[in-house]
């Protein structure tokens, strides 16, 4: 289901790193030896077997990250991102695998367009890429795509991300059919009749600044609808980019009631509130919008207790000239692949709000589990998908420092702590700082 360009497994010894793999129950200093791209030894001291040795003393070695929500803009907006640049950005952010959304131009709604993407990924992708296909043709919300054929052609899951599936009847049919495809539906929950013309969260900030409000209930209403349908049809579903406390509460209740539902949250919703919109900077404009402090707190609680299993960047590159516009005229979306770990480490882990092990789990095992992908792990016999983290290193986010083709980051100019030192993907080095 995942595609990456041809690479030869390396021989390598990583010496003296603090190995953190919460799923394997490891947090101690170890050497790791990789033979032909496969982890051959994890021990206090390993024989080098004449492999190249990387001194990782003082660094953290963890399973590489998996991002379940990326926009690669290909086909159609290759000026904003390509598979080559987007996956290079992912490697620089410590990711070994990403899932790409189908809201491209054309939309990924046929086996032919999907097949072309898979071919490109096999030539260009620096990290493993999986592709989602659309739930409805052209994402128009009217007719289902040929989901079984798309699944056979390699679709990892299905999503109309960017727009909701407005019709409850159609959503029900899609859920019923997922028993045939064996693939998840990943849902962008938004009741559009409540968000028409809106740009920011409806609350004190929108009222003061004059923006048309995008209320929390526009998300939670659709979350409740889709969870009810999933329960009724006894099918799993995944909720994309959750932003509102009420949505989190609904997900928690559904999970407790046995619904197979999962959720994800973005770094920006974990770190920012709508207060940031006062800057009128188009780089804090995204859908769903930044919400209130109580929402941010609820998202963080849910991430901690596992109600939300995955962190997703919703990496959404946009051309500079399109973002350099008045807030209302600018498109929704921000980049995130190259800053996700560092900003969450800086703002949440270092300030004691989130344990490092939880952050690592929610950025690797969590998303892999939701989509049935091979879990990156630090264990003998596993293909090496690893990231080496320099937790003490400070660096500044700069427009000229991105591998992504776009620079619409909300963190431009910020100094972050925690740098990716090395990313190993499918047994070979994909990024080295």
């Amino acid at each position, binding site marked *: 289901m995942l595609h990456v360009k041809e690479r030869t497994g390396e021989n390598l010894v990583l010496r003296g790193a603090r190995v953190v793999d919460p799923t394997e129950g490891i947090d101690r200093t170890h050497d790791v030896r990789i033979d032909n791209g496969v982890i051959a030894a994890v021990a206090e001291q390993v024989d080098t077997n004449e492999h190249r040795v990387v001194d990782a003393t003082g660094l953290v070695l963890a399973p590489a990250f998996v991002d379940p929500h990326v926009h690669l803009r290909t086909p159609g907006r290759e000026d904003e991102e390509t598979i080559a640049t987007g996956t290079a950005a992912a490697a620089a952010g410590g990711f070994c695998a990403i899932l790409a959304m189908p809201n491209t131009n054309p939309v990924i709604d046929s086996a032919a367009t999907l097949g072309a993407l898979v071919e490109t990924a096999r030539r260009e992708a620096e990290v493993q890429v999986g592709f989602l296909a659309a739930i409805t043709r052209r994402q128009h919300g009217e007719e289902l795509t040929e989901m079984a054929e798309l699944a056979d052609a390699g679709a990892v899951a299905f999503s109309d991300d960017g727009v909701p599936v407005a019709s409850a009847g159609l959503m029900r049919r899609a859920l019923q059919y997922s028993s045939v495809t064996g693939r998840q539906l990943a849902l962008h929950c938004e009741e559009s009749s409540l968000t028409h013309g809106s740009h920011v969260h409806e609350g004190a900030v929108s009222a*003061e600044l*004059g923006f048309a*409000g995008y209320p929390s209930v526009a998300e939670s209403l659709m979350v409740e609808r889709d969870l009810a349908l999933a329960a009724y049809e006894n099918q799993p579903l995944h909720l994309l980019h959750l932003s509102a406390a009420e949505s989190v509460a609904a997900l928690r209740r559904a999970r407790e009631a046995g619904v197979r539902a999962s959720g994800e949250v973005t770094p920006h919703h974990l770190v920012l509130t709508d207060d940031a919109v006062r800057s*009128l900077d188009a780089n804090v404009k995204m859908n769903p919008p930044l919400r209130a402090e109580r929402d941010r707190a609820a998202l963080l609680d849910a991430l901690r207790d596992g109600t939300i299993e995955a962190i997703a960047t919703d990496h959404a590159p946009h051309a500079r000239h399109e973002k350099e516009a*008045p807030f*209302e005229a600018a498109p929704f979306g921000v980049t995130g692949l190259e800053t996700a770990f560092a900003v969450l480490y800086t703002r949440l882990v270092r300030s004691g709000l989130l344990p490092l092990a939880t952050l690592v789990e929610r950025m690797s095992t969590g998303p892999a589990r939701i989509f049935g992908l091979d879990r990156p792990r630090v264990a003998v016999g596993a293909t090496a998908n690893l990231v080496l983290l320099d937790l003490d290193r400070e660096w500044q986010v700069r427009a000229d420092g991105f591998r992504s083709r776009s620079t619409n980051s909300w963190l*431009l100019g910020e100094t972050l702590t925690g740098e990716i030192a090395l990313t190993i993907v499918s047994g070979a080095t994909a990024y080295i700082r």
Partner: protein
Amino acid sequence: MTSIRLVKDELRPPGPPSRRHLLSIADLERDDVERLLGAARTFAASLDRELKKLPTLKGRLVVNLFYESSTRTSSSFELAAKRLSADTMTLKSAGSSVDKGESLKDTALTLGAYDPDVIVIRHPHIGAPQLVADVTGAHIVNAGDGTHQHPTQALLDLYTLQQELGRLEGLHVAIVGDILHSRVARSLVQAFKLVGVRCTLVGPPALLPRGLDAEMTTDIDAIRAADVVYVLRMQNERMEAGANYVPSLREYAARWGITPERLRPGQKVMHPGPMNRGVEIDPRVADSADSLVETQVRSGLVVRMAVLYDVLTGGPVGVRALAAAEVA
């Protein structure tokens, strides 16, 4: 001396050196408002003379960049600049390269190449003035950005209230109508807070912004307690069929329209214009002796003179300033 603060974008690296802008009432302190109103009074005195032109801003270039139609604001900014001897240039989006799809940034860069001292901008999008401030070296004055702010309107309304009622502190103003879409109301709410005017917002429920930190009611009878009733324009273009903010303009007029019967005798009425007579305001009210609408327009000229003068000089105002202006 206090100054009009620069809006700082904390998410971006520091920009060019501080310039004085008037982007939002939220950037002002009470001292700023008092200084501006004082300057406006000084300029009003100068307009009583036979020769009305002052040499104060001679050699300065003021560009008016208007992306939305406007009568009062654009004419009063242009006249204000001329009364202060500045060179002026007015650009409307219709008939300019904007028609050809030029972006705001590119238009601003083009105008910026002429080194204007001030750019006065009106634009349908929130935050457009800030964008122009970011990409040019000019002092920016916001003449209305979308549903966000219209700071010079709020200042001229304060000036009008002070002239007509003799004070600001302790007054009670009811603002009636489409608060949700009103940049005038947003600027006024903040301006009233700064100078100690009590403010009650009155309108249909869907047109009262949820979450706004202000006294709000749907009950039109609440206006009776106010010293002044400030009537907002019902923006017909936003009231199209299907939007359902109110069932109809007819029902709005019947329920919230300002009629002589709803007013106390002698209660003053203001309106930022343009008026929809028969919708939000009864023509009898609009034409009554208690209407301050024409005073508002006259105030607009002197307040905009004061704003242009203040952003450009940041200097002292009052008698000394006028004397200095006459010497220059």
